[in-house]
Protein backbone atom coordinates (compact mmCIF):
# COMPACT_ATOMS: atom_id res chain seq x y z
CA UNK A 1 0.00 0.00 0.00
CA UNK A 2 1.24 3.45 -0.77
CA UNK A 3 0.43 6.82 0.71
CA UNK A 4 -1.47 8.78 -1.90
CA UNK A 5 -1.96 11.90 0.24
CA UNK A 6 1.07 13.18 2.10
CA UNK A 7 1.51 16.49 3.82
CA UNK A 8 4.43 17.66 5.92
CA UNK A 9 4.58 20.73 8.11
CA UNK A 10 1.88 22.71 6.30
CA UNK A 11 1.56 26.24 7.61
CA UNK A 12 -0.65 29.02 6.39
CA UNK A 13 -1.55 32.32 8.00
CA UNK A 14 -4.25 34.83 7.21
CA UNK A 15 -3.05 37.98 8.92
CA UNK A 16 -2.83 37.05 12.57
CA UNK A 17 -4.81 33.83 12.17
CA UNK A 18 -2.80 30.66 11.89
CA UNK A 19 -5.18 28.65 9.76
CA UNK A 20 -2.62 25.84 9.45
CA UNK A 21 0.06 25.57 12.07
CA UNK A 22 2.19 22.59 11.09
CA UNK A 23 -0.11 19.94 9.68
CA UNK A 24 1.20 16.45 8.81
CA UNK A 25 -1.06 13.97 7.09
CA UNK A 26 -0.59 10.58 5.44
CA UNK A 27 -3.44 8.68 3.84
CA UNK A 28 -3.07 5.15 2.52
CA UNK A 29 -4.41 4.30 -0.90
CA UNK A 30 -8.05 3.23 -0.94
CA UNK A 31 -8.83 4.39 2.59
CA UNK A 32 -11.07 7.13 3.94
CA UNK A 33 -9.60 9.78 6.22
CA UNK A 34 -12.06 11.73 8.31
CA UNK A 35 -10.85 15.20 9.27
CA UNK A 36 -12.79 16.18 12.34
CA UNK A 37 -12.78 19.63 13.85
CA UNK A 38 -14.87 22.57 15.01
CA UNK A 39 -15.44 25.81 13.07
CA UNK A 40 -12.21 27.55 12.19
CA UNK A 41 -9.98 24.55 12.94
CA UNK A 42 -8.35 24.76 9.51
CA UNK A 43 -10.14 21.92 7.72
CA UNK A 44 -11.09 23.91 4.65
CA UNK A 45 -7.68 25.52 4.42
CA UNK A 46 -6.02 22.11 4.52
CA UNK A 47 -8.32 20.78 1.79
CA UNK A 48 -7.68 23.84 -0.38
CA UNK A 49 -3.94 23.42 -0.07
CA UNK A 50 -4.10 19.71 -0.89
CA UNK A 51 -6.41 20.40 -3.85
CA UNK A 52 -4.00 23.04 -5.29
CA UNK A 53 -6.37 25.96 -4.66
CA UNK A 54 -4.24 27.62 -2.00
CA UNK A 55 -0.50 27.87 -1.50
CA UNK A 56 0.91 27.00 1.90
CA UNK A 57 3.34 29.48 3.45
CA UNK A 58 5.51 26.57 4.57
CA UNK A 59 5.63 22.82 4.22
CA UNK A 60 4.89 20.55 1.31
CA UNK A 61 2.21 18.18 0.13
CA UNK A 62 2.00 15.43 -2.46
CA UNK A 63 -0.87 13.65 -4.15
CA UNK A 64 0.12 10.26 -5.65
CA UNK A 65 3.71 11.44 -5.48
CA UNK A 66 3.11 14.73 -7.33
CA UNK A 67 3.87 17.96 -5.55
CA UNK A 68 0.74 20.09 -5.22
CA UNK A 69 2.61 23.26 -6.16
CA UNK A 70 5.18 22.17 -8.74
CA UNK A 71 2.95 19.58 -10.43
CA UNK A 72 -0.42 21.22 -9.85
CA UNK A 73 -1.79 20.31 -13.28
CA UNK A 74 -1.10 16.60 -12.79
CA UNK A 75 -2.54 16.71 -9.30
CA UNK A 76 -5.68 18.35 -10.66
CA UNK A 77 -6.09 15.52 -13.16
CA UNK A 78 -6.02 12.99 -10.31
CA UNK A 79 -8.32 14.62 -7.79
CA UNK A 80 -11.97 15.44 -7.41
CA UNK A 81 -12.94 18.29 -5.10
CA UNK A 82 -16.27 19.11 -3.54
CA UNK A 83 -15.74 22.29 -1.59
CA UNK A 84 -17.60 23.40 1.49
CA UNK A 85 -19.58 25.87 -0.60
CA UNK A 86 -21.22 24.74 -3.83
CA UNK A 87 -19.15 25.55 -6.89
CA UNK A 88 -21.73 25.20 -9.62
CA UNK A 89 -22.97 27.56 -12.28
CA UNK A 90 -26.39 28.49 -10.93
CA UNK A 91 -27.64 29.70 -14.29
CA UNK A 92 -26.93 26.49 -16.13
CA UNK A 93 -28.88 23.27 -15.79
CA UNK A 94 -27.53 20.34 -13.84
CA UNK A 95 -26.76 18.49 -17.04
CA UNK A 96 -25.03 21.48 -18.63
CA UNK A 97 -22.81 21.85 -15.57
CA UNK A 98 -21.64 18.25 -15.76
CA UNK A 99 -21.20 18.20 -19.54
CA UNK A 100 -19.18 21.41 -19.37
CA UNK A 101 -16.83 19.92 -16.80
CA UNK A 102 -16.51 16.76 -18.88
CA UNK A 103 -15.54 18.86 -21.90
CA UNK A 104 -12.99 20.77 -19.81
CA UNK A 105 -11.52 17.38 -18.91
CA UNK A 106 -11.01 16.75 -22.64
CA UNK A 107 -13.71 14.10 -22.91
CA UNK A 108 -15.29 13.81 -26.37
CA UNK A 109 -18.75 15.33 -26.50
CA UNK A 110 -20.58 11.97 -26.52
CA UNK A 111 -18.53 10.64 -23.63
CA UNK A 112 -19.09 13.82 -21.60
CA UNK A 113 -22.83 13.49 -22.15
CA UNK A 114 -22.80 9.80 -21.25
CA UNK A 115 -20.90 10.34 -18.00
CA UNK A 116 -23.14 13.25 -17.09
CA UNK A 117 -26.23 11.13 -17.66
CA UNK A 118 -24.79 8.26 -15.63
CA UNK A 119 -23.95 10.47 -12.67
CA UNK A 120 -27.29 12.28 -12.79
CA UNK A 121 -28.98 8.91 -12.66
CA UNK A 122 -26.81 7.69 -9.83
CA UNK A 123 -27.47 10.80 -7.76
CA UNK A 124 -31.20 10.73 -8.53
CA UNK A 125 -31.05 14.01 -10.38
CA UNK A 126 -32.26 12.80 -13.77
CA UNK A 127 -35.65 14.45 -13.34
CA UNK A 128 -34.10 17.80 -12.48
CA UNK A 129 -31.28 17.53 -15.03
CA UNK A 130 -32.85 20.05 -17.39
CA UNK A 131 -33.56 22.68 -14.73
CA UNK A 132 -31.32 25.59 -13.79
CA UNK A 133 -29.29 24.81 -10.67
CA UNK A 134 -30.65 27.92 -8.95
CA UNK A 135 -33.98 26.08 -8.65
CA UNK A 136 -32.36 23.13 -6.81
CA UNK A 137 -32.74 22.43 -3.10
CA UNK A 138 -29.66 22.42 -0.87
CA UNK A 139 -29.42 18.65 -0.94
CA UNK A 140 -29.74 18.49 -4.71
CA UNK A 141 -26.95 21.05 -5.11
CA UNK A 142 -24.70 19.08 -2.82
CA UNK A 143 -25.33 15.91 -4.76
CA UNK A 144 -24.69 17.66 -8.07
CA UNK A 145 -21.53 19.18 -6.65
CA UNK A 146 -20.30 15.74 -5.61
CA UNK A 147 -21.25 14.33 -9.01
CA UNK A 148 -19.27 17.16 -10.63
CA UNK A 149 -16.15 16.12 -8.76
CA UNK A 150 -16.48 12.54 -10.00
CA UNK A 151 -16.56 13.08 -13.75
CA UNK A 152 -12.84 12.43 -14.15
CA UNK A 153 -13.15 9.23 -12.05
CA UNK A 154 -10.69 10.68 -9.54
CA UNK A 155 -8.24 8.56 -7.60
CA UNK A 156 -8.29 10.98 -4.72
CA UNK A 157 -11.48 12.69 -3.59
CA UNK A 158 -11.77 15.68 -1.24
CA UNK A 159 -15.15 16.31 0.33
CA UNK A 160 -15.35 19.36 2.57
CA UNK A 161 -18.26 18.94 4.99
CA UNK A 162 -20.33 17.07 2.41
CA UNK A 163 -23.33 16.55 4.68
CA UNK A 164 -23.61 19.84 6.55
CA UNK A 165 -27.12 21.18 6.08
CA UNK A 166 -28.53 17.98 4.59
CA UNK A 167 -31.59 16.16 5.86
CA UNK A 168 -31.08 12.63 7.20
CA UNK A 169 -32.06 10.97 3.95
CA UNK A 170 -29.72 13.06 1.82
CA UNK A 171 -27.01 12.53 4.41
CA UNK A 172 -27.47 8.77 4.13
CA UNK A 173 -27.13 9.03 0.37
CA UNK A 174 -23.89 10.95 0.62
CA UNK A 175 -22.62 8.34 3.05
CA UNK A 176 -23.46 5.60 0.58
CA UNK A 177 -21.66 7.52 -2.14
CA UNK A 178 -18.53 7.85 -0.05
CA UNK A 179 -18.59 4.13 0.70
CA UNK A 180 -18.99 3.37 -3.01
CA UNK A 181 -16.05 5.58 -3.89
CA UNK A 182 -13.92 3.76 -1.37
CA UNK A 183 -15.08 0.40 -2.75
CA UNK A 184 -14.11 1.58 -6.24
CA UNK A 185 -10.61 2.08 -4.91
CA UNK A 186 -10.59 5.84 -4.55
CA UNK A 187 -8.88 7.47 -1.61
CA UNK A 188 -11.18 9.86 0.19
CA UNK A 189 -10.47 12.75 2.54
CA UNK A 190 -13.63 14.12 4.07
CA UNK A 191 -14.06 16.81 6.66
CA UNK A 192 -16.87 16.84 9.14
CA UNK A 193 -17.98 18.31 12.43
CA UNK A 194 -19.66 15.08 13.50
CA UNK A 195 -17.84 12.25 15.21
CA UNK A 196 -20.75 10.04 14.26
CA UNK A 197 -20.07 10.69 10.57
CA UNK A 198 -16.33 10.14 10.84
CA UNK A 199 -17.02 6.96 12.79
CA UNK A 200 -19.42 5.69 10.14
CA UNK A 201 -17.21 6.38 7.12
CA UNK A 202 -13.58 6.78 8.01
CA UNK A 203 -10.81 4.22 8.38
CA UNK A 204 -8.79 6.79 10.25
CA UNK A 205 -9.66 10.09 11.85
CA UNK A 206 -7.48 13.19 12.25
CA UNK A 207 -8.79 15.68 14.77
CA UNK A 208 -7.98 19.32 13.91
CA UNK A 209 -7.85 22.16 16.37
CA UNK A 210 -6.34 25.61 15.84
CA UNK A 211 -4.57 24.51 12.65
CA UNK A 212 -2.96 21.43 14.15
CA UNK A 213 -3.66 17.70 14.15
CA UNK A 214 -4.18 17.09 17.83
CA UNK A 215 -5.17 13.45 17.57
CA UNK A 216 -4.91 10.78 14.92
CA UNK A 217 -6.08 7.19 14.91
CA UNK A 218 -8.77 4.70 14.01
CA UNK A 219 -12.29 5.56 15.11
CA UNK A 220 -12.08 2.88 17.79
CA UNK A 221 -8.82 4.26 19.19
CA UNK A 222 -10.21 7.74 19.15
CA UNK A 223 -13.41 6.81 20.91
CA UNK A 224 -11.41 4.97 23.53
CA UNK A 225 -9.22 8.03 24.08
CA UNK A 226 -12.07 10.47 23.84
CA UNK A 227 -13.61 8.92 26.86
CA UNK A 228 -16.89 7.47 27.64
CA UNK A 229 -19.91 6.72 25.60
CA UNK A 230 -23.41 7.00 26.89
CA UNK A 231 -25.74 4.06 27.39
CA UNK A 232 -29.35 4.96 26.58
CA UNK A 233 -32.20 2.64 27.56
CA UNK A 234 -35.85 3.51 27.28
CA UNK A 235 -38.49 1.36 28.94
CA UNK A 236 -41.49 0.36 26.85
CA UNK A 237 -43.59 0.42 30.01
CA UNK A 238 -42.89 3.71 31.70
CA UNK A 239 -44.05 2.50 35.15
CA UNK A 240 -41.11 0.07 35.25
CA UNK A 241 -38.49 2.77 34.74
CA UNK A 242 -37.16 2.52 38.28
CA UNK A 243 -36.60 -1.20 37.98
CA UNK A 244 -34.72 -0.48 34.73
CA UNK A 245 -32.61 2.17 36.43
CA UNK A 246 -31.58 -0.29 39.11
CA UNK A 247 -30.33 -2.79 36.50
CA UNK A 248 -28.37 -0.08 34.66
CA UNK A 249 -26.85 1.14 37.92
CA UNK A 250 -25.75 -2.35 38.84
CA UNK A 251 -24.16 -3.13 35.44
CA UNK A 252 -22.39 0.19 34.87
CA UNK A 253 -21.46 0.90 38.44
CA UNK A 254 -22.61 4.49 37.86
CA UNK A 255 -25.60 6.37 39.12
CA UNK A 256 -27.79 6.70 36.01
CA UNK A 257 -29.74 9.73 35.05
CA UNK A 258 -33.45 8.90 35.08
CA UNK A 259 -36.36 10.62 33.40
CA UNK A 260 -39.46 8.97 34.79
CA UNK A 261 -41.93 10.65 32.46
CA UNK A 262 -40.17 9.35 29.35
CA UNK A 263 -39.00 6.06 30.80
CA UNK A 264 -35.47 7.11 29.89
CA UNK A 265 -32.33 5.94 31.67
CA UNK A 266 -28.87 7.11 30.65
CA UNK A 267 -25.47 6.35 32.13
CA UNK A 268 -21.85 6.84 31.08
CA UNK A 269 -20.04 3.62 30.18
CA UNK A 270 -16.44 2.75 29.41
CA UNK A 271 -16.88 -0.82 28.23
CA UNK A 272 -19.10 -1.18 25.13
CA UNK A 273 -19.61 -4.83 26.13
CA UNK A 274 -22.09 -3.60 28.69
CA UNK A 275 -24.68 -3.32 25.94
CA UNK A 276 -24.98 -7.08 25.62
CA UNK A 277 -25.16 -7.57 29.36
CA UNK A 278 -27.96 -5.03 29.59
CA UNK A 279 -29.98 -6.73 26.87
CA UNK A 280 -29.55 -10.08 28.61
CA UNK A 281 -30.55 -8.78 32.04
CA UNK A 282 -33.59 -7.00 30.65
CA UNK A 283 -34.59 -10.25 29.03
CA UNK A 284 -34.23 -12.17 32.27
CA UNK A 285 -36.25 -9.55 34.14
CA UNK A 286 -38.98 -9.64 31.50
CA UNK A 287 -38.48 -5.96 30.83
CA UNK A 288 -39.23 -4.72 27.32
CA UNK A 289 -37.03 -1.90 26.12
CA UNK A 290 -38.25 0.52 23.46
CA UNK A 291 -34.68 1.60 22.80
CA UNK A 292 -31.24 0.35 23.80
CA UNK A 293 -28.28 2.22 22.39
CA UNK A 294 -24.74 3.37 22.91
CA UNK A 295 -24.37 7.01 22.01
CA UNK A 296 -20.98 8.33 20.89
CA UNK A 297 -19.61 11.37 22.59
CA UNK A 298 -20.42 14.57 20.74
CA UNK A 299 -17.68 16.64 19.17
CA UNK A 300 -17.82 18.89 22.19
CA UNK A 301 -17.29 15.98 24.55
CA UNK A 302 -14.44 14.66 22.40
CA UNK A 303 -12.78 18.03 22.47
CA UNK A 304 -13.24 18.44 26.13
CA UNK A 305 -11.50 15.16 26.84
CA UNK A 306 -8.78 15.50 24.18
CA UNK A 307 -7.83 19.12 24.70
CA UNK A 308 -9.25 19.98 28.05
CA UNK A 309 -11.14 22.85 26.45
CA UNK A 310 -14.48 22.86 24.72
CA UNK A 311 -14.70 23.58 21.01
CA UNK A 312 -14.55 27.36 21.03
CA UNK A 313 -18.09 28.10 19.95
CA UNK A 314 -18.23 31.86 20.42
CA UNK A 315 -14.98 32.46 18.54
CA UNK A 316 -15.99 30.27 15.66
CA UNK A 317 -19.36 31.95 15.28
CA UNK A 318 -17.51 35.22 14.69
CA UNK A 319 -15.16 33.52 12.24
CA UNK A 320 -18.07 32.03 10.40
CA UNK A 321 -19.45 35.52 9.89
CA UNK A 322 -16.11 36.82 8.73
CA UNK A 323 -15.83 34.00 6.27
CA UNK A 324 -19.30 34.77 4.99
CA UNK A 325 -18.38 38.37 4.31
CA UNK A 326 -15.05 37.49 2.72
CA UNK A 327 -16.57 35.14 0.24
Amino acid at each position, binding site marked *: MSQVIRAEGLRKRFGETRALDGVDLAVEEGTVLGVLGPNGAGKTTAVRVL*ATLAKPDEGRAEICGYDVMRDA*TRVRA*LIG*LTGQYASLDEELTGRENLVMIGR*LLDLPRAEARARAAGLLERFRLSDAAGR*AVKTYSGGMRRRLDIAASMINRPRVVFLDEPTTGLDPRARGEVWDTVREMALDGATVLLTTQYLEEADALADRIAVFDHGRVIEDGTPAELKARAGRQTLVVRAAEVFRTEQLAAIVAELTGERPEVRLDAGLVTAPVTDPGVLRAVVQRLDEAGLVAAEVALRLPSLDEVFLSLTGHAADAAGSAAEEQLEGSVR
Partner: protein
Amino acid sequence: MTTMTTMTGTTAHDALPPARISLRRTVRHSLTLAWRNIAQLRHSPEKLIDVTLMPLVFLVLFLYVFGGAVAGSTHAYLQQLLPGLVAQMAMFATMGLGTALSEDIRKGVFDRFRSLPIARSAPLIGTVVGDTVRFLTVVVVLSVAGTALGFRFGSDPLRVLAGFALAYVFYLAFSWISVMVGLIAPSPETVQGLAFMFVMPLTFGSSVFVANTSTMPGWLETWTKMNPVSHLTDALRALLVGGPVGNHVWITLAWAVGIVTVTFPIAMRMYARRA
Protein backbone atom coordinates in the same frame (compact mmCIF):
# COMPACT_ATOMS: atom_id res chain seq x y z
CA MET B 1 -17.20 -3.68 -13.45
CA THR B 2 -14.60 -4.53 -10.85
CA THR B 3 -12.01 -5.37 -13.50
CA MET B 4 -12.75 -2.09 -15.27
CA THR B 5 -12.09 -0.17 -12.10
CA THR B 6 -8.83 -1.96 -11.51
CA MET B 7 -7.81 -1.32 -15.08
CA THR B 8 -8.42 2.39 -14.96
CA GLY B 9 -6.69 2.37 -11.62
CA THR B 10 -3.49 0.94 -13.05
CA THR B 11 -3.52 2.93 -16.28
CA ALA B 12 -4.32 6.24 -14.64
CA HIS B 13 -0.68 7.26 -14.58
CA ASP B 14 -0.23 6.73 -18.31
CA ALA B 15 -3.42 8.63 -19.00
CA LEU B 16 -2.16 11.65 -17.07
CA PRO B 17 -1.97 14.83 -19.08
CA PRO B 18 1.44 16.38 -19.54
CA ALA B 19 2.54 18.79 -16.85
CA ARG B 20 2.02 21.75 -19.16
CA ILE B 21 -1.16 22.50 -21.03
CA SER B 22 -0.78 23.00 -24.76
CA LEU B 23 -2.05 26.08 -26.53
CA ARG B 24 -4.49 23.95 -28.51
CA ARG B 25 -6.12 22.58 -25.40
CA THR B 26 -6.26 26.03 -23.86
CA VAL B 27 -8.08 27.31 -26.92
CA ARG B 28 -10.53 24.42 -26.70
CA HIS B 29 -11.11 24.91 -22.97
CA SER B 30 -11.63 28.64 -23.52
CA LEU B 31 -14.23 27.91 -26.18
CA THR B 32 -16.03 25.50 -23.84
CA LEU B 33 -16.13 28.24 -21.22
CA ALA B 34 -17.29 30.78 -23.80
CA TRP B 35 -20.12 28.37 -24.57
CA ARG B 36 -21.01 28.58 -20.89
CA ASN B 37 -21.69 32.32 -21.20
CA ILE B 38 -23.81 31.76 -24.24
CA ALA B 39 -25.78 28.99 -22.53
CA GLN B 40 -26.42 31.38 -19.64
CA LEU B 41 -27.79 33.94 -22.06
CA ARG B 42 -30.01 31.34 -23.64
CA HIS B 43 -31.56 30.65 -20.22
CA SER B 44 -31.83 34.30 -19.25
CA PRO B 45 -31.92 36.52 -22.35
CA GLU B 46 -32.93 39.44 -20.12
CA LYS B 47 -29.22 39.81 -19.35
CA LEU B 48 -28.91 41.52 -22.73
CA ILE B 49 -31.33 44.26 -21.75
CA ASP B 50 -28.61 46.81 -20.97
CA VAL B 51 -26.89 46.35 -24.32
CA THR B 52 -30.27 46.61 -26.05
CA LEU B 53 -31.88 49.55 -24.28
CA MET B 54 -28.87 51.73 -23.54
CA PRO B 55 -27.83 52.14 -27.21
CA LEU B 56 -31.43 52.99 -28.11
CA VAL B 57 -31.79 55.56 -25.34
CA PHE B 58 -28.42 57.17 -26.08
CA LEU B 59 -29.11 57.24 -29.80
CA VAL B 60 -32.48 58.95 -29.50
CA LEU B 61 -31.48 61.31 -26.67
CA PHE B 62 -28.22 62.56 -28.10
CA LEU B 63 -29.56 62.74 -31.62
CA TYR B 64 -32.46 65.03 -30.75
CA VAL B 65 -30.86 66.98 -27.90
CA PHE B 66 -27.55 67.81 -29.63
CA GLY B 67 -28.33 67.24 -33.30
CA GLY B 68 -29.46 70.74 -34.21
CA ALA B 69 -26.94 72.52 -32.00
CA VAL B 70 -23.84 70.52 -32.95
CA ALA B 71 -24.34 69.78 -36.62
CA GLY B 72 -27.13 72.04 -37.77
CA SER B 73 -29.57 69.20 -38.37
CA THR B 74 -30.36 65.87 -36.78
CA HIS B 75 -29.79 64.13 -40.09
CA ALA B 76 -26.27 65.48 -40.50
CA TYR B 77 -25.54 64.72 -36.84
CA LEU B 78 -26.74 61.13 -37.14
CA GLN B 79 -23.99 60.40 -39.67
CA GLN B 80 -21.41 61.57 -37.08
CA LEU B 81 -23.08 60.20 -34.00
CA LEU B 82 -23.80 56.63 -34.95
CA PRO B 83 -20.18 55.51 -35.53
CA GLY B 84 -19.25 57.22 -32.27
CA LEU B 85 -22.03 55.44 -30.42
CA VAL B 86 -20.83 52.08 -31.77
CA ALA B 87 -17.49 52.83 -30.12
CA GLN B 88 -19.01 54.08 -26.87
CA MET B 89 -21.62 51.38 -26.48
CA ALA B 90 -19.01 48.69 -27.17
CA MET B 91 -17.02 50.08 -24.23
CA PHE B 92 -20.15 50.15 -22.08
CA ALA B 93 -20.90 46.55 -23.05
CA THR B 94 -17.65 45.37 -21.46
CA MET B 95 -18.66 46.66 -18.04
CA GLY B 96 -20.92 43.70 -17.25
CA LEU B 97 -17.91 41.42 -17.61
CA GLY B 98 -16.17 42.59 -14.45
CA THR B 99 -19.33 42.25 -12.38
CA ALA B 100 -19.99 38.77 -13.74
CA LEU B 101 -16.43 37.64 -12.97
CA SER B 102 -16.61 39.02 -9.47
CA GLU B 103 -19.90 37.15 -8.93
CA ASP B 104 -18.38 33.94 -10.28
CA ILE B 105 -15.50 34.19 -7.85
CA ARG B 106 -17.78 34.95 -4.92
CA LYS B 107 -20.06 32.04 -5.76
CA GLY B 108 -17.18 29.60 -6.03
CA VAL B 109 -17.65 28.65 -9.69
CA PHE B 110 -14.04 29.62 -10.35
CA ASP B 111 -12.88 27.31 -7.56
CA ARG B 112 -14.26 24.46 -9.58
CA PHE B 113 -12.41 25.64 -12.69
CA ARG B 114 -9.21 26.11 -10.74
CA SER B 115 -9.37 22.55 -9.46
CA LEU B 116 -9.48 21.19 -13.02
CA PRO B 117 -6.40 20.46 -15.15
CA ILE B 118 -6.92 23.43 -17.46
CA ALA B 119 -4.89 26.58 -18.03
CA ARG B 120 -5.37 29.33 -15.47
CA SER B 121 -6.21 31.77 -18.24
CA ALA B 122 -8.94 29.64 -19.84
CA PRO B 123 -11.85 30.80 -17.62
CA LEU B 124 -10.93 34.45 -18.16
CA ILE B 125 -10.40 34.12 -21.90
CA GLY B 126 -13.60 32.08 -22.17
CA THR B 127 -15.61 34.75 -20.38
CA VAL B 128 -14.23 37.51 -22.61
CA VAL B 129 -14.90 35.58 -25.82
CA GLY B 130 -18.35 34.49 -24.63
CA ASP B 131 -19.27 38.14 -24.19
CA THR B 132 -18.99 38.63 -27.96
CA VAL B 133 -22.75 38.21 -27.96
CA ARG B 134 -23.07 41.52 -26.14
CA PHE B 135 -20.93 43.30 -28.71
CA LEU B 136 -22.97 41.83 -31.54
CA THR B 137 -26.17 42.97 -29.85
CA VAL B 138 -24.88 46.54 -29.65
CA VAL B 139 -23.90 46.51 -33.33
CA VAL B 140 -27.20 45.06 -34.49
CA VAL B 141 -29.34 47.37 -32.33
CA LEU B 142 -27.47 50.48 -33.41
CA SER B 143 -27.41 49.50 -37.09
CA VAL B 144 -31.10 48.72 -37.23
CA ALA B 145 -32.29 51.66 -35.13
CA GLY B 146 -29.85 54.03 -36.85
CA THR B 147 -31.01 52.99 -40.28
CA ALA B 148 -34.63 53.42 -39.21
CA LEU B 149 -33.82 56.97 -38.10
CA GLY B 150 -32.14 57.77 -41.43
CA PHE B 151 -28.51 56.71 -41.04
CA ARG B 152 -26.92 55.73 -44.34
CA PHE B 153 -23.95 53.33 -44.43
CA GLY B 154 -21.20 54.02 -46.98
CA SER B 155 -21.46 52.18 -50.27
CA ASP B 156 -18.65 49.65 -49.68
CA PRO B 157 -19.88 46.75 -47.51
CA LEU B 158 -16.32 45.48 -47.02
CA ARG B 159 -15.31 48.79 -45.47
CA VAL B 160 -18.34 48.65 -43.17
CA LEU B 161 -17.40 45.12 -42.15
CA ALA B 162 -13.80 46.19 -41.58
CA GLY B 163 -15.11 48.99 -39.37
CA PHE B 164 -17.08 46.60 -37.16
CA ALA B 165 -14.12 44.20 -37.06
CA LEU B 166 -11.91 47.04 -35.81
CA ALA B 167 -14.47 47.91 -33.16
CA TYR B 168 -14.54 44.24 -32.12
CA VAL B 169 -10.77 44.03 -31.77
CA PHE B 170 -10.77 47.13 -29.59
CA TYR B 171 -13.73 45.78 -27.65
CA LEU B 172 -11.84 42.55 -26.91
CA ALA B 173 -8.80 44.50 -25.74
CA PHE B 174 -10.90 46.83 -23.61
CA SER B 175 -12.63 43.81 -22.06
CA TRP B 176 -9.39 43.05 -20.24
CA ILE B 177 -9.66 46.36 -18.40
CA SER B 178 -13.05 45.23 -17.20
CA VAL B 179 -11.65 41.81 -16.26
CA MET B 180 -8.86 43.48 -14.33
CA VAL B 181 -11.30 45.77 -12.53
CA GLY B 182 -13.55 42.80 -11.72
CA LEU B 183 -10.61 41.01 -10.12
CA ILE B 184 -9.32 44.05 -8.24
CA ALA B 185 -12.69 45.13 -6.86
CA PRO B 186 -13.36 43.61 -3.44
CA SER B 187 -16.99 42.78 -4.24
CA PRO B 188 -19.33 42.61 -7.25
CA GLU B 189 -21.14 45.73 -6.02
CA THR B 190 -18.03 47.89 -6.31
CA VAL B 191 -17.07 46.75 -9.81
CA GLN B 192 -19.54 48.99 -11.61
CA GLY B 193 -18.32 52.16 -9.91
CA LEU B 194 -14.67 51.38 -10.64
CA ALA B 195 -15.41 50.48 -14.25
CA PHE B 196 -17.20 53.80 -14.74
CA MET B 197 -13.97 55.58 -13.80
CA PHE B 198 -12.38 54.12 -16.91
CA VAL B 199 -15.33 54.20 -19.25
CA MET B 200 -16.70 57.70 -18.62
CA PRO B 201 -13.61 59.86 -19.31
CA LEU B 202 -12.61 57.62 -22.19
CA THR B 203 -15.94 57.73 -23.99
CA PHE B 204 -17.17 61.23 -23.16
CA GLY B 205 -13.78 62.93 -23.35
CA SER B 206 -13.48 61.90 -26.96
CA SER B 207 -14.73 62.70 -30.42
CA VAL B 208 -17.74 60.39 -29.94
CA PHE B 209 -20.25 63.22 -29.65
CA VAL B 210 -18.41 66.03 -31.39
CA ALA B 211 -16.27 65.46 -34.47
CA ASN B 212 -14.78 68.93 -34.15
CA THR B 213 -12.80 69.10 -30.92
CA SER B 214 -11.19 72.50 -31.55
CA THR B 215 -13.69 74.33 -29.34
CA MET B 216 -12.53 72.40 -26.25
CA PRO B 217 -10.06 73.89 -23.75
CA GLY B 218 -6.46 72.99 -24.59
CA TRP B 219 -5.92 70.27 -22.00
CA LEU B 220 -9.15 68.52 -22.93
CA GLU B 221 -8.37 68.72 -26.61
CA THR B 222 -4.96 67.17 -25.97
CA TRP B 223 -6.57 64.34 -24.03
CA THR B 224 -9.22 63.86 -26.68
CA LYS B 225 -6.63 63.68 -29.43
CA MET B 226 -4.68 61.00 -27.52
CA ASN B 227 -7.72 59.03 -26.42
CA PRO B 228 -7.94 55.69 -28.25
CA VAL B 229 -11.72 55.95 -28.31
CA SER B 230 -11.38 59.09 -30.47
CA HIS B 231 -9.18 57.23 -32.90
CA LEU B 232 -11.62 54.33 -33.00
CA THR B 233 -14.49 56.77 -33.56
CA ASP B 234 -12.69 58.63 -36.35
CA ALA B 235 -11.74 55.32 -37.99
CA LEU B 236 -15.35 54.14 -37.73
CA ARG B 237 -16.67 57.37 -39.25
CA ALA B 238 -14.40 56.87 -42.22
CA LEU B 239 -15.14 53.16 -42.59
CA LEU B 240 -18.90 53.14 -41.93
CA VAL B 241 -19.79 56.39 -43.71
CA GLY B 242 -16.92 57.40 -45.97
CA GLY B 243 -13.93 59.70 -46.15
CA PRO B 244 -10.20 59.35 -45.55
CA VAL B 245 -9.21 56.83 -42.86
CA GLY B 246 -5.83 58.41 -42.11
CA ASN B 247 -3.81 56.42 -39.60
CA HIS B 248 -6.66 56.05 -37.11
CA VAL B 249 -6.95 52.32 -37.76
CA TRP B 250 -3.30 51.71 -36.95
CA ILE B 251 -3.35 53.88 -33.87
CA THR B 252 -6.47 52.07 -32.63
CA LEU B 253 -4.84 48.68 -33.20
CA ALA B 254 -1.67 49.80 -31.46
CA TRP B 255 -3.73 50.89 -28.46
CA ALA B 256 -5.53 47.52 -28.44
CA VAL B 257 -2.22 45.67 -28.33
CA GLY B 258 -0.92 48.04 -25.66
CA ILE B 259 -3.98 47.62 -23.45
CA VAL B 260 -3.84 43.83 -23.59
CA THR B 261 -0.10 43.80 -22.96
CA VAL B 262 -0.58 45.77 -19.77
CA THR B 263 -3.88 44.43 -18.43
CA PHE B 264 -3.63 40.71 -19.24
CA PRO B 265 -0.65 40.02 -16.96
CA ILE B 266 -2.16 42.17 -14.20
CA ALA B 267 -5.48 40.34 -14.52
CA MET B 268 -3.74 36.95 -14.39
CA ARG B 269 -1.74 37.99 -11.33
CA MET B 270 -4.86 39.22 -9.55
CA TYR B 271 -6.68 36.05 -10.51
CA ALA B 272 -3.94 33.89 -9.01
CA ARG B 273 -4.03 35.98 -5.83
CA ARG B 274 -7.81 35.88 -5.40
CA ALA B 275 -9.29 32.79 -3.79
